[in-house]
């Protein structure tokens, strides 16, 4: 009965992992069970390797829970052997778009139902004119307000797989920032295409807009949007071009101190705004940063992303920077966090806001 702990995982991948361990326990003991269970695995294409490390269940004696689980698996296996809906009708009108995870995603030409699992992707869907086809979104997707009409499928970290499947989307848009790679396989098994975006800079954001536009059949509109955003970006860059770059500290949160590292797309925004992030060489996207290193960096300006959907929590400078040149000269700038942390169309608003704050003289007409 050592398997008694198997029912603990609450989320779907975890539950499958627990089940797969049970199947292993059964097949080791009673050969007869191994083939339907295997059939089920092949059918579901579950990623089971690695899970055994965590659930080293060894059924050394006859155990009822294990038997029941095996029976469930057999029925599952039988159900799985029934052929899937024919793929051909979808395949007849499909095209391939490669995503930021390097996968070639096969997508239907006509997409009517799309779910976005990141607020920046929801914003992009609306910006390219595909908002009417958004059927699902996360609880963080609060912009534009029309987005709230779509069904909520959970937050970015724990969306409900059941609800996603029941909404019958053709495409699910994922941002790597949400760490949802585990869901990819499960959704694909349901014949739902998964498209992963991973922008690390403003060009990556433009790429996401282009990709989402093509997915929704609005490639032209996406092109126009990217063109407009590029023009605004170039205007900012030209305005600050001749200015001495300001050494900036980006304070994501004060206690504990988090900042933007090398991989954060806001680091690129800061550079384009005529500044340089003092933490631009720190590995990772959002590292926890040493207080004393922040103090020693002597930033000339501090940017506090605050006042947007994250609330007013991050509106004071961390203790260690209270005597930094930035604070002494009054160069602490609060900028709407939604424009800085979401790699979507409004990132250019964030870029303009930062550039105007850091180089006000460059924007005097």
């Amino acid at each position: 009965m050592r398997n008694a702990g198997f029912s603990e995982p609450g989320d779907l991948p975890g539950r499958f992992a627990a089940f797969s361990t049970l199947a292993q326990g059964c097949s080791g003991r009673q050969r007869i069970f191994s083939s339907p269970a295997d059939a089920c695995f092949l059918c579901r294409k579950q990623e089971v390797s690695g899970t055994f490390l965590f659930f080293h269940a060894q059924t050394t004696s006859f155990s009822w829970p294990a038997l029941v689980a095996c029976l469930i698996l057999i029925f599952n296996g039988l159900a799985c052997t029934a052929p899937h809906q024919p793929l051909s009708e979808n395949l007849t009108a499909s095209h391939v778009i490669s995503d930021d995870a390097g996968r070639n995603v096969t997508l239907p030409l006509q997409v009517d139902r799309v779910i976005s699992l990141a607020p920046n992707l929801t914003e992009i869907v609306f910006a390219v004119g595909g908002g009417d086809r958004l059927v699902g979104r996360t609880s963080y997707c609060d912009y534009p307000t029309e987005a709230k009409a779509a069904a909520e499928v959970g937050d970015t970290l724990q969306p409900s797989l059941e609800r996603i499947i029941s909404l019958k989307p053709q495409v699910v848009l994922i941002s790597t920032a949400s760490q949802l790679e585990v869901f990819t396989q499960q959704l694909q098994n349901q014949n739902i295409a998964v498209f992963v975006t991973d922008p690390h800079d403003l060009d990556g954001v433009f790429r996401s807009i282009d990709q989402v536009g093509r997915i929704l059949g609005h490639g032209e509109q996406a092109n126009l949007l990217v063109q407009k955003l590029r023009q605004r970006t170039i205007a900012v860059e030209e305005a600050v071009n001749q200015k001495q770059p300001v050494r900036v500290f980006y304070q994501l949160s004060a206690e504990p101190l988090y900042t933007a590292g090398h991989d954060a797309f806001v680091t690129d925004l800061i550079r384009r705004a005529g500044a340089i992030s003092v933490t631009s060489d720190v590995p990772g996207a959002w590292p926890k940063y040493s207080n004393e290193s922040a103090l020693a960096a002597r930033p000339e300006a501090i940017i506090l992303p605050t006042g947007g959907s994250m609330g007013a929590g991050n509106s004071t400078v961390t203790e260690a920077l209270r005597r930094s040149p930035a604070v002494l000269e009054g160069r602490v700038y609060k900028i709407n966090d939604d424009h800085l942390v979401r790699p979507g169309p409004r990132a250019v608003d964030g870029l303009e806001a930062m550039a105007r704050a850091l180089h006000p003289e460059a924007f005097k007409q």
Partner: protein
Amino acid sequence: MSTMAADSKEVMVASRARQNRVTLRKTVVSCALLSAALLLAVVLMSLIGSEPLPAKASLCALVSLGTNSCGLTRDQFDILFQIRLPRILLAAAVGGSLATAGAGYQALLRNPLAEPYLLGISNGAAVGTMIALVFFGANEWTRPLLAFTGALLATLAVYRLARGRAGATPERLILAGVIVTTFLSSVIVFVTTLMDATRIRSFTFWLLGDLSGTSKALLPVAITIAIAGTVALTLNARSLNLLMLGERDAFDLGVEVGRVRVVVFVVASLLVGSSVAASGSVGYVGLVVPHLARLSLGSDNRITIPAAALGGALFVIVADTLARTIIAPRELPVGAITALIGAPLFIYLLKRA
């Protein structure tokens, strides 16, 4: 006959006095050595950090207790005295508190595995701290207060759950600890879902034990409680020694079992509460350090408790120095380091015992 009885009584009293003197000497010597090591660690670890400081000038400034800058720049002086030293002192207070609490629980519950983290008492304090942060965010002093309340409630819950009709067995106690831990973990998860996104990030880090947010207001509180708690438990060490024979035997030998239990529960909850409020749940300190103290100095609580306090301070100072330097300028939570050192060390101790 009567003279013989009187003689033997005198001999017993004399031998006991001698024994007490030996214990006292052993306590004083080991504590003096550990204190010296602790002081050395505070000074040495102050010289290490993500930003290099000139060693000689820093040492000179430390010896002058901050009255002389010894040629350090304003920034270097601030790094040393505003950031590093407070953090090291907090590490010492947290380590001392947790190790003392662990030693207290282990003696009272006669269970070598009794530890604030494993029994769910740290989690109780964490829930209290989170409630303070969510509802009384601005009032820093509510954090240790509610953390203490949470720790005390968790202690009582574990104790009640562990005492079945058959009495408290070590296995039952650990099981009760597991139940309380998992229950409170779900409470913590529930509370975090009520918070906004930036706070969740801070909390996951804090829950693992993090000393970077050293609060100027809470540091004196943590140090005071650490010292007072250690003294209080050391004063009850003789009773705890007798309690290790069993509650009934201790009672027969004149120990006020009920009073000692209340003292240990309240003092240990205060220690755990103040350290969790300041730094989150730093695990394994209360387990590993008292064990090391007993292994090297014997199981007399009059030595073990103060030695564990000093050793715990030493252990967390070193662990936190690693946490803030090995991937500098990024940082790790100190709880990850104590678990990384503590878990294998504990397995080694179990195998040896």
